[in-house]
C-alpha cells in the first residue's frame, strides 16, 4: 500500500480541523453551524406549536412562544451536556489527527533536510578538495642556479606520478608554471569536473619566463603529455572514454568560443607558484578546487 497516497487526504482533513479549531474564521463557521441548528430547531418547534394552536382554534401568544423558545434552548443545552463525552472524544480525536499529520510532515521535513545536508556536505567536500599537481625536490641550489627533480600527477591517478623530469633554473627562487583550467563552480560543486593544471615550464627569478625550461606540454598531436598514455597504462578506464575525455579537453583548450558557449569554464590562464629554495628542499604543488594553485604541506612526501 502506498502510504504517500494517504498523506493527501490526511493532510487535508488535518488542515480543515486545524482551521476550524484555531482560526477566528473557523470559530465563526462552527458558531454559525451551531446557531443555524438552534434556529432550525426553535423555528420547527414554534411552527409545530403554531399549527397545534391553529388546529384547536386558539391563537398562540407571545408568552407561549417565549416558553417554547426557552424550552428548546434548555433542551439544546441538555442535549449538548448529554453528548459532552462524545464531543470531548471527537475533539481529542481531531487533535490527535492534527498531531499525527504534523508529525508526518515533520518526518518528511527531516528527510528533506537530511537530503539537503548530504547535498551541501558533498558541495563543501568538492570545493575543499585539492589535487596534487607536482612534487618538486631540490637536488642542488647555490643561489645562482638550482637543479630540480619534478614529478607530475594526474588527478585521476593520484597515487603515483605519471612523469618525472629534471630541470635547471637560474636564481634562488623557482617558478613552476602551468596552464590552469578553472571550471564553473556549478561543475565543481556537483563533482562533475575538477579544476586542471598542466605544468609546462619552470624558470628562476633571474631568468625571463620565456627563457625557462619547457616541460613539453603537448605531444606532436597536440595532446598534453600528462594525459597521453598507452592502453596498458589507463587500467580501469575504457580507452574510448579516455580518448573522448582528451578530445574534450583539447577542444576546451583550443576553442575559446566553444568553452564560453559551453559555460563550463570559469577561466583559463597561466599560473605559477614560486618558492625560494635550498638544497634538499621539497614541496608539493596543488590545484585548488576553489581556484588557483597553492603550495601546502611541505613535508607531504
Amino acid at each position: 500500500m502506498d502510504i504517500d497516497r494517504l498523506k493527501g487526504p490526511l493532510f487535508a482533513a488535518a488542515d480543515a480541523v486545524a482551521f476550524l479549531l484555531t482560526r477566528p474564521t473557523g470559530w465563526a463557521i462552527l458558531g454559525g453551524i451551531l446557531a443555524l441548528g438552534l434556529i432550525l430547531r426553535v423555528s420547527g418547534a414554534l411552527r409545530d406549536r403554531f399549527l397545534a394552536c391553529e388546529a384547536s382554534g386558539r391563537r398562540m401568544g407571545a408568552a407561549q412562544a417565549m416558553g417554547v423558545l426557552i424550552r428548546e434552548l434548555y433542551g439544546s443545552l441538555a442535549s449538548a451536556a448529554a453528548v459532552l463525552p462524545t464531543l470531548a472524544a471527537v475533539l481529542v480525536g481531531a487533535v490527535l489527527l492534527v498531531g499525527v499529520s504534523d508529525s508526518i510532515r515533520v518526518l518528511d521535513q527531516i528527510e528533506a533536510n537530511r537530503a539537503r545536508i548530504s547535498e551541501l556536505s558533498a558541495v563543501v567536500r568538492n570545493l575543499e578538495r585539492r589535487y596534487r599537481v607536482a612534487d618538486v625536490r631540490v637536488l642542488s641550489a647555490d643561489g645562482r642556479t638550482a637543479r630540480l627533480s619534478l614529478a607530475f600527477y594526474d588527478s585521476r591517478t593520484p597515487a603515483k606520478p605519471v612523469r618525472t623530469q629534471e630541470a635547471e633554473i637560474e636564481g634562488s627562487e623557482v617558478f613552476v608554471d602551468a596552464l590552469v583550467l578553472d571550471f564553473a563552480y556549478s561543475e565543481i560543486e556537483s563533482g562533475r569536473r575538477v579544476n586542471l593544471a598542466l605544468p609546462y615550464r619552470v624558470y628562476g627569478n633571474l631568468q625571463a619566463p620565456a627563457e625557462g625550461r619547457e616541460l613539453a606540454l603537448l605531444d606532436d598531436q597536440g595532446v598534453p603529455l600528462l594525459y597521453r598514455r598507452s592502453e596498458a597504462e589507463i587500467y580501469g578506464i575504457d580507452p574510448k572514454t579516455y580518448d573522448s575525455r582528451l578530445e574534450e579537453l583539447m577542444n576546451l583548450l583550443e576553442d575559446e568560443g566553444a568553452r564560453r558557449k559551453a559555460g563550463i569554464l570559469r577561466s583559463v590562464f597561466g599560473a605559477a607558484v614560486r618558492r625560494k629554495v635550498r638544497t634538499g628542499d621539497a614541496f608539493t604543488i596543488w590545484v585548488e578546487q576553489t581556484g588557483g594553485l597553492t603550495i601546502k604541506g611541505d613535508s607531504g612526501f
Partner: protein
Amino acid sequence: MKHSGSGLFMAVLLALGLVFLGLTALTALQKAEIARLEKGIQALKEELVPIRFMVLERDKGLVKARVRLYDLAGNEVDLLEMTWPGTELSFDFSVVPAAGRYLAFPRRIFTDRLAPSSGTNLFPRYDKEGFPAVFEGADFGRLGRARLTDLFQALKEDREPSGSFGSVVHDIARIAAFQPGVVYKVVARPKGGIEILED
C-alpha cells in the same frame, strides 16, 4: 478501570507530544546545520580583488597596461600605467597564511621577456607608513594591523613567513591572451589560490 483508561490515554498523549517536540528540535538542529554549511560554501567561494587591469596595447614586442590596486573595501589604492618588454603579463603575489585563511600581497609585475627580479616592484605603491594599504577597509583591530605591518615588513625584506609561497598569474599568448581593451580582475581566494577572471 475508568481511571486507568484515562491515565493510559494521557500517557499516550504525552508520549506523542514528546515525540513531536523531539522531531521539532531535530528539524531545528538540521536547519542550523544547513545554515552553517551554506555559510561555509559562501566563505569558500569568497573573492577578494586586489588588482584590476587592462592591456592597452601590444606592439613591437612591448605590452602596455593600466593596473589599479584596490583595498578590501574596493577603494583604489594606486594606479600605474606602464609599458613592459614582452607579450605575456604576469602578476606576482606573496601568499601568506593568517587566521585560518590566506592573504595575498601584490608583489611585482613582470612579463615573459622580463625576469621576475627585474620586474616592477609593487610593495612601495601601497606602503602606507609600513602598513599594506591593500588591507585597509576592514577592521583588523590594533593587534591585527600590527601583525599585518610585521608581515609586510618581512616580505619587503625578502623574508618568507612560515607557510607562505609566491603565486603568479598571467596570460598565455597562444591559448588565452589578455584582450586589449578588456578589464580583467585578479581574484584572491581564501584557500590561497589566485585566478584571473574577466571583469
